[in-house]
Each structure stands twice: as structure tokens, then as C-alpha cells.
């Protein structure tokens, strides 16, 4: 018991000591030298082509065409089925990606460095809302946008970040929490705040007014731009917490549309998986539960650091997705998540809850003991590839992941 308490104290200390800074945007091949040709990184725990859901397959065929590994979507699908691509989780390459989470060597990735520990984490740039690859979109419009991100926006944003010496992220999140964001479904304030910081540097480093205008419009028009930044930040904060012997703190939560996986500090890189659950939420006109894809994405790294569903008390507007509807329900979710976490984050506080710090440090023992699974705010994709987002809602992490993890954790400490 003593050992676990000490290990968890260290885990929480490392989480809170993190100092994430957005420093650059560079090609994935440069950021991750091991990311080779025909390697496709995806969201969630390991999965192969035959078990991938519709949107993920759509994204795989799309990215294969983007990278020039196949002439068209059908050929890409055939190549995938024949084992022509190597699939790996983003997490295995110090990266994260939202929804389908496609990361390949040709794409630009944002770089977040945790200055307290020196580690880095990567995430692609958020494409925007609607018909995009992260929801399985793969038509010409989607690929054209990816090319623009690779050739124009990515380099421009990278140049701006280098010129200004990077953007520290914790303070942006702190202010966003006071402005109604929870950094998973609501990133409007943080997206606006980061645009404020980037805009002058973009202007200084841009030689082309039209390109500058397009870049500014791209960020300004995307309410969820900060999501990918928050995700890379989450990965950068949690990676130093991995591998603390005797610690029962969750270091990653992630889904691939078929399985939900978690990792625990004391059990290293083992994934504990279970079938994902169906999100419960609200749908855009013309769509319903019948169209929904099961839960997907690495974005649950945001809940892992105490934001998203855990910080719902800061984002009453999101409570509408919870079903009960009253904005005042939002606080209850934060209080409930406090039952399964070790502490509060003193730098990320929620004014409406008397400056309660967001619940931080998910302890698998508390999850199993209380039966309260982490609450996640998520987007909902159409289950057919290529269509896009159909709604948003709430989903719970499967308790089975935590039960499995607890058994393995106990065994690792010699307890049967």
C-alpha cells in the first residue's frame, strides 16, 4: 500500500510539473525518423485492416492515395487487405491523432515539447469541421486540403512558432477553462487565444498576403483548431509518467473504433483493451443513432490529463449532450470524476465550482472500486466511410479495461 501511495504521489507530481510548449510544425518523417514508407499510424490500441471500422478504412485508403502509395481508393483498399501497409498506433511513435488519427511521413505534425522533462509529442493539424479525413472523409476536397496543410499552412505555422520561440500551453488552457472550454468538445476560446498569439508571428514571417490571409482564416474559422494542440500537449504531459513501478495511474486512454485501450504507469506499455461503447448524444439534422460509428480517437488523452469530460463543470453548454440537459448537471460530472482521481490541478481551475482544480490522475483502483468509469466528451462519426461527423455526445470508458489492468497491476506487485 505504501509503495503504491509513494509511486502515485510521484506520478501526480510529474503530471503537474509538466511544462508543455508548442514549438514547431515539421514533416512527420523529420519528427519521427522511424516512420517509414507505407507505415500508417492510427488512433487507438493496435488493430489490423480486417477489424478496422468503416471510417478508419476510409481514412486509410485516403491517406494512402495522398502519400502516393496507391493510384485510387479501391487500389488502396486492395493493397491494405493484401498487407501492403504496416499499421501502428500513434502512441507507439510519441504521437496522437483525433478520430481516425491518420499519421504518415508526408504530413505536417505539430510538435509540443515538455520542457520539464525534455520529451516531445506530435499531432497532425486539425483539418476543420465537416467532411474531413479524421471522420473517414477521403475525396478530392479532403486530399486537397491535406496537400495545402503540407505545402502551405504547415510550413507557415512552423516558421511563426520558431520565430516567436514557441507558445507555452498551460496558461492558454487555464484561461480557456474560465471561458467555457473543456478542450475536447469545446475549444472555441483556446482556438481564439492561440490565434491571438500566432497572428503577429504569422504576419512577420509571411511573404505573401494572400497566403497569410488563408492561414489566418483557416485557424479563425475552425472552432476545434486547439483540439489537436491539446492532444499533443496531453501526450507530452503523460509520457514522463509512464513506467513508475507501483503506480496505478492511467497514462493513456485511446480508441480505434473497435477497441478501447488504456495504459497504466506501473504496467508500462501494455494495452488493456475491451470493445468500445456507443456514444450517447445529439445528432445533426438528418442523422440518428443508427448512423453512428462506435467511439474512436486518441483524443481521450485530454480526459487523461483532467480536461474534456472531467472538466465539464467549466463548460455548461456541453452538458446538453449528456441527456439530462440542464447546464447545472455539468458540475456533477466533474465532482463524479473527482471520485476516481488522486488530486486536483491547482493551475487549471473552474471558477463556477469555486475554483476547484480539474480532477487529475485517474487511479484504476478507484475506478474498479466505485464502478465509475471515466466520462468522455466526443464527436460522433458516420459509420460509413467518407461522410463525416454526424453528431457529438458522451461515452464512458469500458470498465473491463480497468478490471484487466487492475489484475495485471496486482500481479506486477506480486499480489494474486
Amino acid at each position, binding site marked *: 500500500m505504501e509503495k503504491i501511495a509513494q509511486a502515485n504521489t510521484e506520478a501526480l507530481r510529474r503530471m503537474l510539473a509538466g511544462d508543455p510548449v508548442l514549438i514547431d510544425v515539421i514533416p512527420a518523417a523529420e519528427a519521427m525518423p522511424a516512420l517509414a514508407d507505407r507505415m500508417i499510424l492510427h488512433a487507438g490500441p493496435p488493430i489490423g485492416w480486417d477489424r478496422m471500422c468503416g471510417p478508419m478504412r476510409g481514412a486509410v485508403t485516403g491517406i494512402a492515395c495522398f502519400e502516393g502509395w496507391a493510384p485510387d481508393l479501391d487500389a488502396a483498399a486492395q493493397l491494405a487487405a493484401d498487407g501492403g501497409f504496416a499499421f501502428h498506433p500513434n502512441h507507439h511513435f510519441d504521437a496522437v491523432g483525433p478520430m481516425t488519427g491518420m499519421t504518415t511521413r508526408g504530413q505536417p505534425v505539430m510538435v509540443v515539447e515538455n520542457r520539464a522533462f525534455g520529451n516531445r509529442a506530435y499531432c497532425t493539424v486539425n483539418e476543420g*469541421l*465537416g467532411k474531413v479525413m479524421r471522420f473517414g472523409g477521403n475525396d478530392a476536397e479532403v486530399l486537397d486540403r491535406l496537400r495545402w496543410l503540407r505545402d502551405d499552412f504547415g510550413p507557415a505555422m512552423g516558421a511563426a512558432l520558431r520565430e516567436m520561440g514557441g507558445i507555452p500551453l498551460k496558461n492558454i488552457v487555464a484561461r480557456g477553462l474560465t471561458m467555457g472550454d473543456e478542450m475536447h468538445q469545446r475549444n472555441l476560446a483556446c482556438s481564439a487565444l492561440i490565434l491571438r498569439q500566432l497572428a503577429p508571428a504569422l504576419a512577420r514571417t509571411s511573404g505573401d498576403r494572400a497566403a497569410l490571409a488563408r492561414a489566418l482564416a483557416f485557424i479563425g474559422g475552425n472552432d476545434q483548431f486547439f483540439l489537436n494542440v491539446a492532444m499533443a500537449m496531453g501526450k507530452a504531459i503523460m509520457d514522463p509518467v509512464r513506467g513508475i513501478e507501483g503506480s496505478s495511474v492511467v497514462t493513456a486512454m485511446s480508441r480505434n473504433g473497435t477497441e478501447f485501450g488504456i495504459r497504466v504507469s506501473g504496467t508500462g506499455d501494455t494495452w488493456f483493451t475491451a470493445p468500445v461503447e456507443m456514444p450517447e448524444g*445529439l*445528432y*445533426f*439534422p*438528418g442523422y440518428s443513432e443508427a448512423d453512428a460509428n462506435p467511439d474512436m480517437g486518441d483524443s481521450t488523452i485530454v480526459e487523461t490529463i483532467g480536461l474534456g469530460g472531467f472538466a465539464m463543470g467549466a463548460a455548461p*453548454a*456541453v452538458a*446538453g*449532450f449528456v441527456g*439530462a*440537459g*440542464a*447546464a*447545472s*448537471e455539468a*458540475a*456533477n460530472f466533474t*465532482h*463524479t470524476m*473527482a*471520485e476516481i482521481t488522486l488530486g486536483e490541478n491547482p493551475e487549471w481551475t473552474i471558477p463556477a465550482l469555486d475554483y476547484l482544480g480539474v480532477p487529475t490522475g485517474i487511479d484504476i483502483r*478507484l475506478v474498479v*472500486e*466505485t464502478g*465509475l468509469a471515466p466520462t468522455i466528451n466526443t464527436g460522433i462519426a458516420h459509420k460509413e466511410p467518407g461522410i463525416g461527423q454526424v453528431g457529438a455526445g458522451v461515452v464512458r470508458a469500458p470498465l473491463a479495461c480497468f478490471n484487466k489492468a487492475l489484475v495485471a497491476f496486482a500481479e506486477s506487485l506480486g499480489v494474486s
Partner: protein
Amino acid sequence: MSETVVNQVRRGFYLDSVALMRLSRQIAGMDGVAEAALMMGTSANKQIMEDAGLLAEGGQAAQGGDLVIGIRAATQAAADAALSAALEDLDRPTSPGAAAAAWRPRTIRAALKSAPDSNLALISVPGDFAAAEARKALRAGLHVMMFSDNVSIEDEVALKREARELGRLLMGPDCGTAIIGGVPLAFANVVPRGDIGLIGASGTGTQEISCLVAQGGKGISHAIGVGGRDLKAEVGGIMTLMALDAFDADPGTRHVVLVSKPPSPAIAAKVLDRMASSKKAFTACFIGAGNIELPANVTLATTLKAGAAQALGGAAGPDFDPRAHAEPPPKGRRQVRGLFAGGTLCAEAQVVFQAAGQAVVSNAPVPGARPYTADSGDTGDHWMLDLGDDQYTRGKPHPMIDPSVRDAALAEALEAPGVGLVLLDLVIGYGAHADPAGYLAAFLDQHRAAKGPPIVASVTGTEADPQTRSAQVAILEAAGVRVAPSNADAAALALACLGLGSKGP
């Protein structure tokens, strides 16, 4: 089938997208509506509405800051109805949110965080989980009262040893009554503070003595519950001894009453030794005990009434002559059926009857009484049944909470040919039924025959209890029940009705 699409635009009208989505779902669900959406008129949103077949000319012209309502319905009438419903909703003043159910903590840990000055946890979860919760509470720095039963004796021993180590009370398991610092816990009565301390196993014994003390004009410092098995050999009286230590050190306590079934000689010796080493005065209220050797500062009482009297240093309750209140039974009938909600009250009644030379059978027999089971047949001996016993409460609440548990036995007793008198207890106070007397009066009204047996009862409670003792007594007397001032007096009154016994216990 031709559908109608209706658009309306509200210029410069903003509503949060989530609120709009919820409203959209509501309108889309109306009769005859195929699809509906309320969205801000951004180009992205207008595209979504167009794809869903909801956009008409009016909506197309909308700007980003305008609200667009799009409805597609089977008929114009349905579309118009949906549109006015949507407009009504938009114009309705927002009601202060139906107060979301206030958050309640789900764990001891979270509860303690939200109320950090707490020092006691009262646990009443099902037995399978009670020991784990008690352990968590102890380790979180709390004293514990375990109302839960169906806890193994091994768990009880382990918990009490740990509690003793930590210097904290573990009252229970199966502890129904405690009063700490004047605060009634679980089933307990409102009694004044005073200098008499009580230690009791599970419940009605403590309740009756505390109420008789109140009736006698004095008060209780604390009533500590120790659970029904504390004085068994396996447990060794751990909590009883801790309670004695606590009372010995308490300047507010002058006299201590310990109420329980007679313990084994070894345990009795331990307890009496501890009492002997104190300078205070003690009453060992062992219901139905025979002669025991006692230290100088300890007196023995074999009924609750005697225990209260000794603590009071005088009589417990008003002078009550049972013969003056007796009513004869129907001719030729002489069996008494005692139907009790309180286990210790049932035991006390058995002791009073045996002292008068009357044989009794019981499902919870005191020494000298014979066991009773449903198939032991009716030998004509008096029955004294504890209806709070497990066999009667499977899947039902305790009869103190739910008087209907007593119904079947009472109905039978009122009709059975040999029954000469029915003896009942009513227990009020916190935790008990809101109106046991009213319930009983209504039941008797339904089931009582003209020439049925007399009914004798007592009310364990005080004036300050939520049910108000005198009000309960008045209801009973109006229903033709003979009420005695204590449970022991009620047993004596029952004997007097049969022309048995002497003046009273």
C-alpha cells in the same frame, strides 16, 4: 408524396449550438415532421441544412449571425404547427434551471472531502460490503457505527481489533441504536442529556432504558451500541470494554448501565473486573440472568425497568398497579400471545412471565424458556415472538419501520380460539414508523371481533420524539388498547389480566 419545406429566419438572433440541437430534435419529433433543424446561418450550417432537404429561399439568404429554422413536413399544417412550436420555445423565458439534483458523494473518501469535520460514519450497506466500507472509514480517521447485519464474525473481530488499535469505536455490526453527544443515531429516541451512560447490544433495550430514564426526569450522557455478538467468546467484549473505558474517563458520566443477554461466565468476569477497577457505579442489566457474583460498585438488574430504576436511584416511571388496570380475558381462554418488534423487549416480557411462574415459548428464548418454531405446534404455553427476527424479515423491512410485518401474526392471534390476551410493543423515535399507533388502531378496527381478547401494549418513546409519546398513547387508548408505562409493566398487566402474578416487577 409531396412534402412542404418551411423556413423562417430570425435576424441577429444567437443561441448556443447545443441548445439549438436539442430544440431541433424536439421539433423533428413532432407529428408529421420528417426533419427539422434550427441552426445559425453560417455557410457550413446552410450546407448541412441543404443536404438534409431543409433549406428554402428564405434560409438561403440568411447570414452567419441569423438563426435559420428549417422544417420539412408531410403537410403544410404540420409544418406550420412545428414552426409555431419552435417559435414559442425560442420566445419562452428561460426558467431557472430545474435545480439539477444536488451532487451527492458516492464514496467515503469524497464524502469526507466535502465534509472534512466529520468524525463518524454510519454504515448500512448490505452485509457483503459492510466490512470493507467499515475498514475504509476507520482508516480514514472515522469512528464507525455498523447498522448492517449479515457480517461474518471473523470480519467483526478483525475490525474491532483494528478499531481498538486506532482508539476508535466500532459500534456493531447489527447495531441499531446509539446516542453520541446527544445526537440520536439510527433507531433512537430524543432524550435529555444527563449523567447516565448506556452500553447496549443492538437496540430496543437501549431505547427502553433511555426512555425510562427520560421519563424519570434524568438524562443520558451517551448510549454506545456494541452489536449483538460483542459479548460472545470469539469477540471477547472488545467494544464493551472500550465503552467502559470511555465512560470511566468521561467527567459527564456518573452511572453506567450495560444491557445485554447474560454473557458467558468468562466474558462476564472480564466485564465485571473492568467495572470493579472504576470509581463509578454500574448496573449490569443482564436480561433473565440468574445469580452472579458482583463487585461492590455493580448492581444486577434482570429487567430493563429495574436497570433504569437503579440508574435513576429510585422508581422508573409512575407508580403503576397492574391489577387496577386489568381486564379479564374471554371466558375459558388463557393463552397470551406476545408479538414484539423489539428483541430485547420480547426478552424482558419472557423474564417477567417466568418470574411469575408462567412457561413461555419463543423464537428467541431467554434461559428457561422453550424454543418456538412454526411447527412446534400449539401446546397452550404463552408465546413471546420476536418479529424482528430474520425469519420474519426476509425481503421485508424491520417491523419497527414497517408495522405490516406484524399483521399476519396479529390477525391470527385475534381469531385463534385459545388466545386470551395479546401483548404488543410500540417503539417510536427516529427511524421508526411515522405513526405506529395510528397503524395499529386502523388494523384493529378492521380485524377485531366483538368478544376478542384484550390488547395490552407499551410505547417505548418520549414526548420529544417526532411521534410524541402521549399522542401515540391517546390513539391506542381510544382504540381500546390498555397502555402500560413500560414494557415490563405491560407484561405485568398481561399477567394481572389473567389473574396471575403479583403487584408487578
